[in-house]
C-alpha cells in the first residue's frame, strides 16, 4: 500500500499510536510486539481474550515467563533468530501442536505462527509474533483424514473372508515394528496353508472352495483373543497372523490351537492324503523387534518353517526363532 500517493493530508503523520493500537485491536489474529530483549511491548486485544492475560500483565515480561510451556517449543529459538539474526520463522500447526496455551483450557487453539524481525531506520530492532487461529482448518483436515481412513479400511479387507488383506497386513506389521523398535518386545508371525487346497477345489468346485476358506478364516479368528493380533488372507489359500508381544512359546501354543481348530471344523476333504477333513500346515517365526526387523526377512523365515511343516507330513506346525 502506498500511503504517499494520498499525502497530504493522509500520510504517516496520521498514524497516531491510538490509531495503530486500534488497528491492531481490530485484527482477528494475535499480534505480539517484542523489544530487542524479547520483552513484550504490546499485545493486542485478541491476545488478551485468547490468553486471559491483560496488556499491563504481559508488558515487560518475556514470552517464556508468561507462558512457561513455550520453553520446550521452537518459539524462543525463533524469537532469537529474529532479534539476533534478522531471520523470519514460520511455525506450522502440524509440526508445532498449539505452542501458545490459548483458548479453552481443555483444548487449545491450533496455531499458525509467523515470527518476524522489524528493523527501524534507526537500526532499532523489534520482533513481531503473529498468531493465526487455524483450528477450523485442522478440524477440516481431521474429518477428511477420518473419511479417508474409513475408505481405506474398506479397501484393505479381503472381500471374500472379511479379514485383512495383504496390504493391510503389511502396514500393520510396519506400525507394530515402529511402535516397538525401541524396546525388546518380541513379535511372532504365523503363516498357514490349507493342505491340498487345489485338490479340494478340483473335487468340490470353486464355490465350495470359497466356502471352505471362509470357514477356515473364521476358525482361525476364533482362536485369536487379543485386540492387537491380526489375521489376514495373504494369498489364495494362504493366511497370516501377526502376533505382537508374543514369544516363541506363546506363538507355538497358538499355532497348535489354530491347527486343531481347523481340523475340528471337520470340513470333508476326501482327496486329502493327510486326513479325511480339511487341515492346514503352519510356519511360525519369532523375532525381537529392532531397528533392522524387516517384513520380507520375517516372512521368508516363516515360509521356510511352513515348508518344513509340509515336508514333515502336513497338518502340523514348525517354528524358528530369529536372531535371539
Amino acid at each position, binding site marked *: 500500500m502506498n500511503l504517499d500517493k494520498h499525502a497530504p493530508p493522509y500520510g504517516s503523520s496520521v498514524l497516531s499510536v491510538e490509531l495503530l493500537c486500534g488497528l491492531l485491536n481490530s485484527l482477528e489474529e494475535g499480534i505480539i510486539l517484542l523489544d530487542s530483549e524479547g520483552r513484550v511491548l504490546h499485545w493486542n486485544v485478541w491476545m488478551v481474550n485468547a490468553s486471559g492475560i491483560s496488556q499491563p500483565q504481559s508488558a515487560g515480561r518475556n514470552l517464556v515467563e508468561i507462558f512457561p510451556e513455550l520453553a520446550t517449543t521452537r518459539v524462543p529459538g525463533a524469537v532469537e533468530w529474529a532479534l539476533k*539474526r534478522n531471520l523470519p520463522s514460520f511455525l506450522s500447526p502440524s509440526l*508445532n501442536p498449539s505452542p501458545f496455551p490459548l483458548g479453552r483450557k481443555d483444548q487449545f487453539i491450533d496455531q499458525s505462527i509467523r515470527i518476524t524481525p522489524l528493523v527501524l531506520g534507526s537500526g532499532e530492532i523489534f520482533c513481531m509474533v503473529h498468531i493465526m487461529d487455524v483450528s477450523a482448518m485442522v478440524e477440516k483436515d481431521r474429518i477428511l483424514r477420518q473419511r479417508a481412513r474409513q475408505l481405506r479400511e474398506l479397501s484393505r479387507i479381503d472381500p471374500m473372508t472379511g479379514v485383512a488383506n495383504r496390504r493391510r497386513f503389511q502396514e500393520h506389521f510396519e506400525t507394530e515394528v515402529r511402535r516397538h523398535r525401541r524396546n525388546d518386545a518380541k513379535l511372532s508371525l504365523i503363516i498357514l496353508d490349507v493342505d491340498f487346497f487345489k485338490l479340494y477345489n478340483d473335487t468340490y468346485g470353486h464355490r465350495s472352495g470359497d466356502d471352505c476358506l471362509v470357514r477356515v478364516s473364521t476358525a482361525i479368528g476364533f482362536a485369536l483373543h487379543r485386540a492387537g493380533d491380526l489375521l489376514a488372507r495373504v494369498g489364495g489359500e494362504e493366511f497370516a497372523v501377526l502376533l505382537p508381544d508374543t514369544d516363541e512359546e506363546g506363538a507355538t501354543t497358538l499355532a497348535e490351537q489354530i491347527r486343531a481348530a481347523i481340523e475340528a471344523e471337520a470340513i470333508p476333504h476326501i482327496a486329502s492324503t493327510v486326513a479325511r477333513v480339511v487341515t492346514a500346515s503352519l510356519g511360525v517365526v519369532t523375532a525381537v523387534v529392532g531397528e533392522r526387523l524387516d517384513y520380507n526377512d520375517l516372512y521368508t523365515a516363516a515360509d521356510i518353517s511352513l515348508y518344513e511343516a509340509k515336508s514333515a507330513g502336513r497338518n502340523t506346525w514348525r517354528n524358528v526363532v530369529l536372531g535371539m
Partner: protein
Amino acid sequence: MTSHSFTELELDALMEIFNVGFGYAADSLSKMVNDQVTLSVPGIRIVNQEEADREFQQSAAINFCGVIQRFEGDFQANAVLMFPGDKSLELVRLMVGEMVALEDMNDLEQEALTEVGNILLNSCVSAMADAVGGHFRSSMPEFISGYWCSIYPNYRAEADQILLLNIDFKLERREIHGYLMFIMQLKSIEHFKTAIMKYMNRFS
C-alpha cells in the same frame, strides 16, 4: 561466463559452512519430530541456467514442491529447497507421523513443508553469515509447486548462477533426496566468492 567459477577448495569451504547449518537444522528438526533426522550433502556445484534446465527438465513431467526465501544483504540470493514428485509429501508425512495420507498435499502439509524449508534455509544462511560475516534480511518462506519451467522464471535473476546442493534427509530408515539451491546474480556470486576466500584465508 563459465559455470565453474569456484575451485574445488572453495567448494570444500562452502561445504564445511553448509555442514554447520545442516547440523543445526537437523538438530531442530529432530527435536520437533522427536526422532533422529539426519541431513547429508552428497554433492555441491555451481551451475548456470542452461545446466539447471538440463538437470531439472530431463523429465518434463516431474512436478516439484518446495519452499523459497529471498535473502538480501551483502549479497542477494533466492534460496530454494525443493523435492521432485511426491518426495516432499513423503517427507512431511514422515515428520508429521500421519499414517492416513490424503491424495494431494493439503494446506496443513504445505505449511509443514514450508516450516521445514524455513528451518533449513535459515540455518544455512546463519552459518554463512557466521562464517563470512555480513548481515541478511529475508522474506517469509513461501510454498512453491509446479514444473521447473514454471517455477524458475519467477526467481531467476539476470545472468544468474545457481549454487546447487543435493541434499538427503534421513528419518525413520527412509532417505529422501532433494535439492537446495541459491539462485544468485553474477555480481552477488562474486561478492560471495570474495567472502569465501576471506574465510579460507583465516585458516591459512
